[in-house]
């Protein structure tokens, strides 16, 4: 199966099993408010931390729901645009499942300063280090995929390259946050904000934009203007880093989350961040214009503009109803690129 499909399976496992916890948490809070009883109200004998357990039991796996499809897309982008088989297919597929399972064991790292017991915090900190391992396996596999590849610097590849670097930085800072003693210092500061934006924007949004450009010809039957695509990718990359890197610094220096008024020494970082956000906004708006433009004026795309090997490239663009005129027969594995050495 294509690696994107593996990532979607892993995502759906998480969605099914994690969501009910927040459902019951919300249900209990609803009951608490409507009937004025006290599950989570300490004055009535309840425990506010119980709510946090139920909430984060869902919300931590939820962030893996958010990134796993992006990781699946990344595998498709890099293989197609470097014309390489994935390095360690089984490892990439297996690590998607591992993230799904391990992601359920770490939720308490959002609660280190909530009043949770120190012992439990230590356990969650320890487990949080483990969940980084499969992500690391993926990053190394992607690098291995690129090695000796025929890398074409198309727009999807540019977004794919951005993903690797920025996701790695975001993931690394996740480990800093998982470190119990460090987290006490940076919890609820902009350091956390920067961390998850490196993953969500530097990771997921880049993967999303890469996917949009990669499959745009397939979905619409039109090619977007490649020059504008590359320019936008560059603008997004610059704007993103200018927006969020200063946030790491000011978070570490003590700038708290969710405060509208702050000490003057943080002003310069906020200005840099806002400037970056404007640039990032330009980078987002450009595709909006040229993609819509391409619907009418873009050159017609054939069935396979990138030389891809997965099934979607073997049908016209856009695909007919039911995707194929006749059900296709799959005779080779999904990444049958010719390789330089044997056995890859």
């Amino acid at each position, binding site marked *: 199966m294509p690696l994107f499909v593996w990532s979607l399976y892993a995502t759906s496992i998480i969605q099914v099993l994690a969501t009910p916890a927040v459902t019951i948490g919300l249900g209990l809070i609803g009951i608490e408010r409507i009937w004025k009883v006290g599950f989570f109200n300490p004055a009535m004998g309840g425990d506010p931390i119980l709510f946090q357990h139920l909430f984060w039991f869902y919300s931590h796996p939820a962030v893996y729901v958010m990134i796993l499809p992006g990781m699946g897309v990344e595998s498709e982008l890099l293989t197609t645009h470097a014309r390489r088989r994935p390095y360690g297919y089984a490892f990439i597929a297996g690590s998607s499942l591992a993230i799904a399972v391990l992601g359920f064991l770490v939720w308490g790292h959002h609660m280190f300063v909530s009043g949770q*017991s120190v*012992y439990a915090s230590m356990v969650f900190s320890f487990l949080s280090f483990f969940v980084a391992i499969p992500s690391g396996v993926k990053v190394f596999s992607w690098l291995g995929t690129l090695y000796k590849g025929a890398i074409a610097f198309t727009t999807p590849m540019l977004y794919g390259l951005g993903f690797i670097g920025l996701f790695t930085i975001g993931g690394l800072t996740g480990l800093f946050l998982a470190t119990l003693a460090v987290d006490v210092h940076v919890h609820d500061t902009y350091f956390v904000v920067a961390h998850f934006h490196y993953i969500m924007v530097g990771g997921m949004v880049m993967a999303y934009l890469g996917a949009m450009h990669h499959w745009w010809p397939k979905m619409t039957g039109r090619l977007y203007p490649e020059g504008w695509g590359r320019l936008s990718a560059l603008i997004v990359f610059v704007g993103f880093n200018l927006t969020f890197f200063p946030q790491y610094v000011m978070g570490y220096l003590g700038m708290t989350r969710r405060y509208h008024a702050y000490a003057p020494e943080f002003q310069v970082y906020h200005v840099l961040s806002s400037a970056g956000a404007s640039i990032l906004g330009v980078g987002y708006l450009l595709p909006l214009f040229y993609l819509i433009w391409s619907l009418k004026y873009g050159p017609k795309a054939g069935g396979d503009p990138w030389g891809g090997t997965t099934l979607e490239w073997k049908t016209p663009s856009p695909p007919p109803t039911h995707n194929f005129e006749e059900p296709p027969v799959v005779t080779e594995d999904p990444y049958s690129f010719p390789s330089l050495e044997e056995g890859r």
Partner: protein
Amino acid sequence: MDEPKASVRIYVAIYVALMALVALTTGLAYLDLAPWSATVAMVIAGAKAVLVILYFMHVRYGTRLTWVFAGAGFYFLGILFFLTLNDVLTRSWLSPFLGGTP
């Protein structure tokens, strides 16, 4: 075409066992088994649940994949319980190594 998974006789036998366990658990509730009364009650409940799952829900006759899907819910429920109680039961510990209150 699949054959019936279990015979009527097996269903009735399981049912009789379940009824016996209900009587047992209610009866035992009146004895002072502290500190084991909660454990005993939960073990009996677990036994009843296992009988229902294996026989009434046909998991015993199911494929390996069915076992995985059925087990997955319990596994993650177990994690929810285990790690939350890991916090709740150790709140009074002053230090992760010492345990207990002064």
